[in-house]
Structure formats: C-alpha cells, structure tokens
C-alpha cells in the first residue's frame, strides 16, 4: 500500500521489536498476535511468540483476571526468546492496560482503545473512582500514549455493512491489527487471505470475512492518515540460512516429531490421553493424522490413558501418553508397571505451574524431580527435555528412539512456554532422518535356543519385544518381580536385588546412545550457566550478552536429564562456578550436586513466566563479580 501521506511520515529502521497485544479473553488477542507473527514470518523476520492467557475461557468481561495477551518479538537478527521489554503494546481495554503496562519500556508506544476506558470498565479492573490512567500525567510522560477510539471507528467504518452490532464489535481486533501493520510496515495481504479462508471458506460466512477485512483496512488507513505516530518503523528481514521455513509451536512440533518417529519405525502410534492444559493440543494435532495410522484414544482418565498405552505397546504399537504435571502424578503407578514390564512407552509431560491445579495456563519446570523420583520404589526412567518449540520435533523422535532401543518408558518434559510459543523453523528433509530400528522376534529366531521374554541384549540390556499374534512366542508379562533368567514370577531375594540393579543399569547405559553435552562459548572459564528444557532461549540470549560485556562465561543446555550425557561431569569441572537457572526451586541443582558433588549456584524464579533476559544478565553478572 502506498499513499502520499504515508511517505510524509519519517521511517526508522530497528533491529528488533517486541509488541504485545492484550485485552479481554474474548477480544481475539491470540488470533491477532498470531496473525502478526505469521505476517512477520512471511516478511522474513526471525521471531518468537509468547501467548499468555487465563485459565478461564471467558472470564467476566473487563476484569484483570480475564486478560489475554500475545507477545511477538520480531527481528532482523537471530533471536531466541519472545523478549522481555515490550516496545509497543496494544491494549483493547483498561484491564489489559493495567496488567501489562508495567512491562512496557519507558518511551514505548502504547496504543489503547480509549472507548473502553469508561467509568464502569475502569471500576471493573479496580481503578479508583474518578481516575483514568489515560489522563495520568506521569503515564503520558513515561510512554508514547496513542488514544484511538477503536470501537467507534470500527463501528463507523462498518456502518453500511448491514451486519449486527455484535459482529461489528468483534472486528475491533482487526482494526487494531491494521494500525500496527501500518506502524511496522507490514503487508496486510496475508491476513486478508487468512480471514477469507477462516470465515468465508471454512465457516461459510463470507460477510463476516468481509467486515473483518474492512476493519483491518480501516485500521491501516487510520494509521496512515491520523498522524498520531511520529514515525513508522522498519524491521528488515533477518539473514537466515537458505531453505524452506515454517512457523512452529512446541506442541505442533511434538506432534510432527511423533508422526515422523512412527514413520521412521514403520509403526502405528497409539496416543492415549486425557484432556489437560497445556498438553491437549498434542492430541488435537494427532487426531487429524489418522491417514498416517495414528490412533488417538481419549481415555476416561489419566491412569486409563497410560494403561491403554501400555497395552498397545505390549501388542506392538508405538505407545504414547500425554499429560501435564497433575496427570503425571496420576500415572505414577502405571509408569512403574511399564518399567517392570520393560515395554517401550513415551510419556509426554507438558509442564505447567502447580502443584495441584496451580496456574494451569502458565509455565514452570518443576516436574523434573517428579520425573526422576515420582514413583514408588527403585524406578529409574529415561528423561529427555526439548529446549525450544522447534526442538520438540527432534526430542520427540529421540524419546521414541530411546524407548524402543532400551525397551523402557521415556518421559518427555516439555513446558507450557515452548508448547504454546512459536518460532520459525527450517523444515528438515525427512529423508535425512535416520530410521528407528524395531525388531519383533519370531519363532525362527529361537530354533536353537528357548525363547525367554527377559533374556537381554548384552549391550543395551533390552529384552525382546515379542508381540501377540506371533506363533510359538506366547509369554506372560506381569507386575510381579520376575526371574532374571526365565521371566517367570520370582520371590527370590537375590533375584530381586539383581533385577533392581539391572533395570537401573539399563537406563544408565542409554548414556552411550545419546549425544555429548555441548558448550556454547569457551569449553572452560569462570562461569558455566547450565540449563535444561524450555529456558534455553533466555539463558542463551543472556549469556551472549554477558559474554559481550567481556566476561568468561559459557552455557550448556541439557536435553537429556536421565541419564546425563557421559561428558557432563567433565564439562562442569572445566568451570570455576556453575550457575543453574531454573523455573523451580533448584531441582537440577539438586541432581547435579548429588550426582557429581559439585557446588551450584541457582537462579530460581517461579512466577509462571519464562525468565526475563535482563534478570538473568544481572544475576549471572553478580556471580561473575563476586
């Protein structure tokens, strides 16, 4: 779009921008933010997103607890996080304004729908009678406040559409998006195409598509003509490696990783799960992939889900169950069963803030010790943890590979932050991904010697995966202790001691099958910042900043937590101090200390939010300067 007036507004080029859309949970903020991210992706920026929404689907309108936000960080550089200082905010109502204004940098742009700042709405979110933050001198001095009567303008621009007030009102978010598209010089075509597809083609509501597109355009023209912005901003495309890219969230990547693993293993998947935030979208995704032989089973409860997966594994399918922390707790006994039966099983745990129901839509990484120890008796399992949205693809494949290779359950620890957050992803050539070798023995393999269900592979200690329907290999597996030789029930004391050790040894041996821990930065120095799981982006960004400030600091990120990569101790001992940031009270720290007797310094913030980079920079620098 061009116009004479647009060229009059000066242009400023920026490396990166963090923008946050916020409003009521019914205001369509997730869609608006998602569209902005899609458009930025197609424009060629690197980006990361952070949706932040309440547990209530439609909390009472206008309240602070009903505020839904969506943050997009887009850049001409390579970025790892959705950013912490907000450069521009769009607030659709006073509650959104109130909850989010503290995150906006001084001087930042704050675009508000001033029509919603009524006496009643201000009262609903707890502003004292007679006070309107938009009239507050301090706020006006601190931020570049842009008051737009969005409700009225949307209504006026659609007055002749013949549509009802409700439908028209729902277009306010597109009006806001139009303003922002203009401000950051984004093309609006992609969103227009999206709206046409969503409303006109899929839902058969062409008139709804039409008014949304008109509102989007009206917003864009408003930006152009209203002269309320001192400048337009340009964030040039990022330099990216050549190739095909797509946007991907963690849960989407988990879905694709599981399907890919199944195809590489030439197997069907049974994914049995009970709906739980923030893991449900993994099942939603898989449920659409029946053509790939994916069987999704919505079980009656968490326990049924894992037990059904175990039954499927016994019968020869790749078995996966998915949940979040509370569900993992319910699955505890059955995980012990899977471990006792020595069957492959992947347990997807998308962690959320707790305990109990906690903050179900917020992130946390406090299930590490539950994954390690949250079962009865000696029951070690393999644990892997993706470090970013796109890494979920790789680690889901790894989880399946290890489960099959070692005939054991594997816990896959994702979290709400990477599950819902999205980033651009260079699409891999699936042909380059190695096959997963699955062997089901047959009678012919035992022409010379007896088939014993618990005879072990001498290297991996895995037992054979003989499946029902195979003649001659009929056998029983059970939760009672088994004789190490025959697999029959055994109450022998020495045998139990041996079996406990064998099961532990098997998990330890997985260390031979996982990659070494890599160090980002010098392989030795003053401080190593060690992380795991979804904090990779914040830690990496922070360490790069601290290093740029002239400090001898490196980082390493564990994607395998049990067993640890075989060089972990060596890496740790190459640094004077080990700093471990975690969104918990020090769970990895505890594991590192107990395993290696190495002192660690924790950075532990448990607010249901990802780490802020500036906080990490500050805390790491403190350690360096001590």
């Amino acid at each position: 779009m061009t116009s004479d007036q647009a060229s009059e507004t000066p242009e400023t080029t920026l490396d990166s921008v963090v923008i946050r859309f916020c409003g009521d949970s019914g205001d369509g903020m997730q869609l608006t933010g998602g569209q902005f991210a899609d458009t930025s992706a197609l424009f060629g920026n690197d980006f990361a997103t952070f949706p932040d929404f309440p547990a209530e689907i439609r909390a009472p309108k206008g309240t602070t607890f009903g505020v839904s936000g969506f943050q997009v960080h887009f850049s001409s550089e390579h970025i790892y996080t959705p950013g912490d200082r907000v450069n521009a905010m769009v607030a659709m109502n006073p509650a959104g304004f109130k909850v989010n204004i503290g995150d906006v940098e001084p001087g930042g742009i704050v675009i508000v729908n001033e029509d919603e700042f009524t006496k009643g709405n201000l009262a609903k979110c707890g502003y004292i009678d007679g006070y309107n933050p938009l009239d507050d001198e301090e706020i006006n001095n601190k931020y570049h406040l842009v008051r737009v009567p969005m409700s009225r303008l949307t209504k006026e621009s659609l007055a002749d559409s013949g549509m009802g007030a409700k439908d028209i009102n729902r277009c306010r978010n597109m009006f806001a998006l139009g303003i922002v598209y203009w401000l950051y010089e984004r093309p609006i075509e992609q969103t227009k195409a999206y709206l046409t597809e969503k409303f006109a083609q899929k839902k058969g509501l062409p008139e709804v598509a039409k008014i949304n597109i008109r509102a989007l355009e009206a917003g864009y023209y408003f930006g152009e003509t209203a002269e309320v912005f001192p400048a337009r901003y340009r964030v040039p495309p990022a330099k990216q490696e050549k190739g095909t890219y797509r946007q991907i969230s963690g849960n989407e990547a988990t879905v694709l990783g599981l399907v890919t693993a199944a195809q590489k293993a030439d197997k069907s998947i049974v994914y049995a799960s009970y709906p739980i935030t923030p893991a449900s979208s993994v099942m939603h995704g898989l449920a659409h992939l029946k053509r790939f032989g994916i069987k999704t089973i919505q079980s009656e409860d968490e326990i049924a889900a894992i037990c059904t997966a175990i039954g499927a594994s016994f019968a020869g399918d790749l078995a996966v169950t998915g949940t979040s922390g509370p569900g993992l707790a319910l699955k505890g006994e059955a995980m012990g069963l899977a471990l006792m039966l020595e069957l492959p099983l992947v347990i997807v745990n998308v962690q959320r803030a707790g305990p109990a129901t906690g903050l179900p839509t917020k992130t946390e990484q406090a299930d590490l010790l539950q994954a390690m120890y949250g079962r009865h008796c000696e029951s070690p399992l393999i644990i892997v943890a993706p470090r970013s949205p796109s890494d979920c693809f790789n680690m889901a494949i790894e989880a399946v590979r290890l489960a099959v290779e070692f005939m054991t359950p594997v816990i896959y620890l994702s979290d709400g932050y990477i599950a819902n957050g999205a980033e651009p992803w260079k699409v891999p050539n699936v042909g380059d991904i190695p096959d997963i070798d699955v062997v089901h023995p047959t009678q012919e393999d035992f022409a010379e010697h007896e088939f014993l269900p618990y005879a072990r592979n001498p290297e991996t200690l895995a037992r054979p995966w003989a499946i029902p329907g195979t003649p001659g290999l009929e056998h029983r597996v059970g939760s009672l202790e088994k004789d190490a030789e025959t697999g029959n029930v055994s109450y022998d004391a020495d045998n139990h001691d041996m079996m406990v050790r064998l099961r532990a040894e098997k998990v330890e041996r997985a260390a031979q099958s996982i990659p070494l821990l890599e160090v980002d930065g010098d392989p030795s120095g003053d401080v190593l910042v060690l992380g795991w799981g979804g904090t990779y982006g914040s830690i990496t960004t922070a360490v790069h900043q601290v290093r740029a400030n002239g400090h001898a600091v490196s980082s390493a990120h564990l994607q395998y937590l049990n067993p640890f990569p075989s060089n972990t101790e060596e890496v740790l001992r190459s640094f004077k101090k080990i700093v471990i940031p975690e969104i918990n009270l020090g769970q990895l720290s505890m594991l590192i200390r107990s395993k290696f007797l190495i002192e660690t310094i924790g950075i532990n913030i448990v607010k249901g939010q990802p780490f802020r980079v500036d906080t990490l920079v500050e805390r790491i620098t403190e350690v360096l300067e001590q």
Partner: protein
Amino acid sequence: MSVTDTKSTELPIYSAKDFTSDQDVRWCPGCGDYAVLSAVRKALPSMGKKKEDFVFVSGIGCSSRFPYYMATYGVHSIHGRGLAVATGVKCANPELEVCVVAGDGDLLSIGGNHTIHTMRRNVDLTILLLNNKIYGLTKGQYSPTSETGKISPTSPAGSIDYPINPIAVAVATGCTFIARSLDVDMKGLDTIFKRAMAHRGTSFVEVYQDCNIFNHKAWFYASQKETMYETTVKLEHGKPLVFGNDRDKGIIFNCGSPKVVTIGEDGITESDLIVHDETDRFLANMYAQMAHPEFPEPMGILYADPSKPTYDQLLYQQLDDAKKDAKKKGGRPDLQSLVTGNESWEVR
C-alpha cells in the same frame, strides 16, 4: 463367521493342555477360581482361533493371577487397570481375542471407572468378573459387592456400605453382552464363555465364585442343589421364565414389574409368563433388579446385542476412511508435506 471358518481349516487341533502354562497354580485349595480356569482352558480349543491370538489381561487380586496360568500371551497389570490395558491391546491389534479376568474389588472398586467406560465404548473384549464378594488377596476385607453389615477386619461392627449391583452397572453403561454364571456350573460356564468370546463387543460375565477362606458359602443359596432351583432362574432365549424345585414357579409382569407366581394357581399358565428375549434391553434392566431373596436370580445370558459396532471397529474404520481419503487426494500420505505444512516460505 466365514473368516473364522476359512481360518479354522488351517488351525492346529488344540486341547486344554495347549492352553495350560508350566506355572504352578497358587490359589487356595477349594477356591472357585480353579473351576473357571479349567472351564476356560477347555473352551479355548473350540473357539476357532489360533493360540497366539489370545491375550489374557488382568489387574491385581487372587483371580488376576489367571494369565500366568494360561499358555497364551498375557499381561498381569496393576490393581484395577486390566480393562485399560486390554483396551490398548485391542486397539493396537484388533485381530487379537482379548479376555480380562478380574475380581469384584478390581473391577468395581479401584477400577470402577474403567469398567463403566470400557462397556460404554463397546471395546471388543470379554470380561470375566469372578465375584466372591470379598477381598481375598489382602485377607478378607469387605468388597464393593459385600452385603451391608458384613463383618470383616475393616468392618468389625458390620460394613455400612451398600453393595454395588454389577449387572445393573453393565446394563446402565450399554454393555452389549451380559451374562451370569456359577463357578460350579461347568456346563453353564462353558456355554456362556464361548458365547461371550464369540460376541463382537464388550462381553460381561459375572461368575458367582466361592472364596472358601474368607467368604465361604456366600453364594451357597444359588449354588447348592437344595436351594438353587428356588433361588435362581435359568434363562433360555425364547423360553418362559420357569423355576422352582418342581418347575412350578414363574415370573409374570404385574403392572410393569416382575412378580413371582405359581403355575396353576389363580388361573396362571405358562403362557402368562415372561418369555426371555436376550435382545430386549428392558428385560435386561428388570433382570438386573431381580435379587435374592425377593426374586430368583437370573442365570445365563441376560442380554446380547451384536448389532452395535465395536470401538476397535470404529477406530479402524476412521483410519481406513482417512487413508482412502488421502489416496483420493493424491496417493500415499506424504510425511514431508505434513512436516513442511501449508504456510511455509522460502529463504533464498
């Protein structure tokens, strides 16, 4: 079924011994479970299925040791979860013939949720409930089917729980095959078990089973010759509900409710009696409410509806439809295009 017929021609000739594992059976001498085990081993050779296609699944409890004693594939899982495991087995491979053996605590207390939902989904499984109205393996506590007032280690003053009615649960969930038998009735067990295994859908068989250690004689009213003809009524499809030592009693509808009558009295003849129709779900509801001592308890096949599609059948139907649909749209589902998605872009 024709499929079974063609398969059966190549079946080895089995005997009960072929289904007997080398493990010593460790139930108490005189336990009712022995009879059920024996009946099942004897029934399997004539099921028209290969040995390797049977899977026995259980939870925890005395009767849950069952799979260890069968020379088939088997899983002895954890307390209450046998049905959930069995559902997974069946979903992974619907060709398998899956049977779950469970006690009353396993199926109706800790695993109650799975019982309801497995039956509701009509997963193609056979469930043998060995109901002894007591917790045996944990040494004699009252169970969900124990009568109110039951004296046990955890209820020294008598249980204050009301018992659950397993048949009523099955009827309420829409279970498509419901039967009841006795551990000592080898002939009845054989017939019912074979019908249950052959039924496509969830088959539920309640077996009155005597725990001669902790709850001996609990079912004697129904199992002993002296009383059983008066306390039970044997159901036969298409036949009137006649019972009694002299087969002189029957059941009629009286204002919609069952009523015990004597044939020959008050002008009642056999033609006035309710005729058993195993496809009638309203009758099944009535049978569920007929309890000793007010009524004779119905034994045999109470209900059978083979018309309802099974869960596994529908699951695979959806998979097949999706595959066919993908084929129409351009051959094999392509992993690369799935991973790439519809909104990718090129960086050159």
